[in-house]
């Protein structure tokens, strides 16, 4: 599963993307966030406040309850600030 990080999530994790294989008990976007937070101090800092984080599964924006199913790509990012 490909994970993408944007803005301060990219900055805190120190990476723009990574390929991961979460264990079978990780079944939702929220569960994935908790599991990714354990991958190191940068990841822990990035996921310290899940309420500030938005996610998209296969480019479809979703909440933390979204089942991962056979997702190939999950992106994490802060609320957008363009325009």
């Amino acid at each position, binding site marked *: 599963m490909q994970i*993408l990080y*944007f*803005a*301060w999530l*990219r*900055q805190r994790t120190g990476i723009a993307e990574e390929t991961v294989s979460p264990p079978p008990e990780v079944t939702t976007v929220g569960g994935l966030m908790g599991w990714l937070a354990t991958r190191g101090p940068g990841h822990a800092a990035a996921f310290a406040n899940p309420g500030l984080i938005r996610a*998209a599964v296969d*480019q479809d924006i979703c909440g933390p309850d979204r089942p991962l199913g056979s997702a190939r790509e999950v*992106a994490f*990012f*802060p*609320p*957008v*600030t*363009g*325009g």
Partner: protein
Amino acid sequence: MPAVSVQAEPFDVAAEMAQLAGSRTDIGAIASFIGLCRADDGLAGMTLEHWPGVTERAISAIVQDALARFPLTGCRVIHRYGPMRPGDGIVLVLAASAHRAAALEAVGFLMDWLKTKAPFWKREDFHDGSHRWVEAKADDDAAAARWTPG
């Protein structure tokens, strides 16, 4: 001419207006909006991050929505990414219509939704080398919500 461009390069407002008008003679109104990088306290500039591909599709969906909602003869959105200096144009929105209300409202609509739906993230870059990611504003959500009935 595509309706949407996401690009690092600056844009040319006059050229874009001329393109949008073309040789048409049924346009009575062209409204525009340019968002610029400001030099707020100690700010050296801004850097805009985006999600290539997804950003273009998100803006195209907003443009389709505007075309369905307002009687426009055309519209154009250019949003830049990368480093910006104070005074640089970040975003350009143009809407053309037979009548002024549609053109002006479409520009407001497009800007409100760009602010809340298009995947861009602004980072403020300060003279002392520090950075700060801009936080989303509740104001912007409220502005976008006024276009949703109910």
